[in-house]
C-alpha cells in the first residue's frame, strides 16, 4: 500500500492528520478516529430501512472497472452508489447515478466521495451528516468539505474498507 493519510476535522475546526503505512495501520487509524464506529452506525440504520449511506465515485476512480469497488462497499454498508458528472459522461456508470446540480440530490447520514474533486456543482447535490472523502490529491477541494479525509488512491483504500465492513456483519 502506498502512503495514506487520514485527516479528521475536529469540531473546533482544527485538523488532526495521521499518516499510516500499511493496512493494519489504516484500520487502526480509522477505528481510533471514530470513522468506523460512525459507518457501522449508519450501516445499522441502513439495515433498518433508512437511506443512510451513499458511496460516490468521480473522475479519480480512473475507469469503469473501479466502480465495482463502489458497489461492493455500498453493499457492505447497505448503501447506494452515486457518481459525478465526469464519471457518468465518461460512461463508467449509468447516467441515473449522477449526483449534483444537474442530477439527483441526496441526503444520507454518510456520504463517501471517492476520487471526487469536490466541484461546487456536485457537492450542491449532497446534504449529508457526515462527509467522507477519499482522494489521492491532498489539495483536492473535496477535503475542504469533508469531515474525514483519506488521502490515498481510492482503488487501494476501497478494498480495505470493503474488508472491514464485510467482516463486521451488523456491527
Amino acid at each position, binding site marked *: 500500500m502506498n502512503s495514506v493519510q487520514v485527516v479528521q476535522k475536529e469540531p473546533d475546526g482544527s485538523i488532526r492528520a495521521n499518516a499510516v503505512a500499511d493496512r493494519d495501520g489504516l484500520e487502526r487509524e480509522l477505528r481510533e478516529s471514530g470513522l468506523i464506529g460512525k459507518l457501522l452506525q449508519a450501516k445499522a440504520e441502513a439495515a433498518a430501512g433508512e437511506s443512510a449511506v451513499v458511496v460516490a465515485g468521480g473522475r479519480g476512480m480512473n475507469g469503469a472497472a473501479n466502480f465495482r469497488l463502489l458497489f461492493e462497499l455500498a453493499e457492505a454498508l447497505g448503501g447506494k452508489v452515486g457518481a459525478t458528472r*465526469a464519471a457518468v459522461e465518461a460512461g463508467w456508470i449509468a447516467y441515473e447515478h449522477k449526483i449534483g446540480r444537474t442530477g439527483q440530490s441526496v441526503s444520507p447520514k454518510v456520504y463517501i466521495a471517492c476520487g471526487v474533486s469536490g466541484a*461546487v*456543482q456536485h457537492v450542491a447535490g449532497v446534504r449529508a451528516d457526515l462527509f467522507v472523502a477519499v482522494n489521492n490529491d491532498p*489539495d483536492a477541494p473535496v477535503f*475542504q468539505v469533508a469531515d474525514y479525509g483519506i488521502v490515498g488512491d481510492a482503488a487501494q483504500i476501497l478494498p480495505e474498507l470493503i474488508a472491514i465492513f464485510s467482516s463486521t456483519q451488523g456491527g
Partner: protein
Amino acid sequence: MSKTFEAVIIGGGIVGASTAFHLVRKGCTRIAVLEKDRVGSGSTGRSSGVIRQFYTHPTLVEMARTGLEYYARFAEITGSPSDFTKTGFILGGNESNAETIRKGYAIQRELGIRSQIVSPDEMVRRHPFLRATDLTTGLFEEEAGYADAHASCLGFMRYARDHGAVIMQGTEVTGIETDADGVCAVRTNRGTIATRTVINCGGPWARNIGRMVGIDLPIRTSRHHVVGVSLPEPQPDPFPIFSDPIRSVYIRPEGKRLALLGSNHPDDARDAVHPDRFADDADPEKAADIRQRSSIPLPFLRSGEMAGLWSGMYAITPDGFPILEKSAHVKGYFAACGLSGHGFKLAPAIGRMMASLVTESAPDPRVRLFRLARFRENDYIDSVTTSALSRLSSEFAHPEEGSDE
C-alpha cells in the same frame, strides 16, 4: 506560516489558477495561491464553460483563441483534463446586429479563425432544431465548444503545485501590508505571509482586496442564471452552441442528455448581489423566463424536464471587460479581475499576460488595453460583450453601499 514567497496570488478560481500556472512556467515557482474557501468554489465552479472567439476587438479575439488552444489541448499542456467538447457555435443575427457580425467576422478572418457568415438556411442545416424565422443572418464558428471550468481550474492548479506553488485553501486575506518599497506582506486568517508581489485575482471579492491597498475597483457583482433542461429523443444532432441576441439567451449541450440555457439579457446586470451574501440558488421565475425565451429559437426546450438551475456571479466593470494591471501607485500590487463573464474563456490568455507583467521588464503590450485608468480616461474597450449591458456607472457599488464611490 512564516514563509516568504516570490508572489502571492489572491483567489483560487480559474484566473488565479492560470496565473499560477503561467508564473511557474516562467520559472517563478516560489509562489502561493490563497483561496478563502476552496479551489474553484466561486464563479469558476458555476461557469457554463462556453469557449468561442467572437468579439469585435482584435485583442479579445486573440485572447479567446488562446483560451480555445489551451482548453482543446489541455491534458497535453497541463497533464489534467478540461473535458473540452467541440460543438461549433452559431451566433444568430438580424438587422439589429448584422453589422456587428460582419465586423467580428472580418477580425476573425484576419486572425485566421475558422468562421463564416451563414444564411438562415445554413444555420438550420448546422442546427436542425433551430426554428428562428426572424433571424436573417448569423455567424458559424467551427472550433468552438465547451469545457469543464472546475476541472480546468484544478488542472492549472495541480500543474502549478507540482512545480513549486503552494495552494492554501481556507485561507482568507484580511489585509495587505506595505512599506517604503511597496507591498511587503499579506495578512490572512492563518498568519502573515511575506512577499513583494501580490496579484489580486479575487473575482467577485476583488474589490475588497483592492481596498486593502487603497484602490477602489469599479466592479459590480451581479447574479447570472443557468438552467438545465433534459433533451428529447432523438437528441438534437448536431447541437452547436447557439447564441440568440434577440432573445438574449445562449444554449449549449451538456453531455448527451442535457441542454444548459443561460441568459445574457442587459437587465441581468441589475440583479446585483453582494459577494458575501450570495446564495447560488436560482430564482424560479427567472429560470422559467430563460427557458421560455430559449424555446422560441429551439422549441424542443419546451418539453424537456428541468434538470437543475443555479446562478453564478459576474464581476462586471463599466465596459464589461477585465482589469489587468500592474499598479502605478502601489509597488508590487497587480490585479487581474472584473472578468465580466468572460473569465473562463479568457483565463489562459490572462494568466499568460499577468505572468508577463509580473516577470518581464518589457511585458506583453496588449495588457495596456485593460488598465484600470481607462475608465477615468474614458478610453473604454470597444467590443461586443455579453455584459455591455454593464454601462451602468451610477450603479457601480455593492448594492447596500450606495454612495461610497
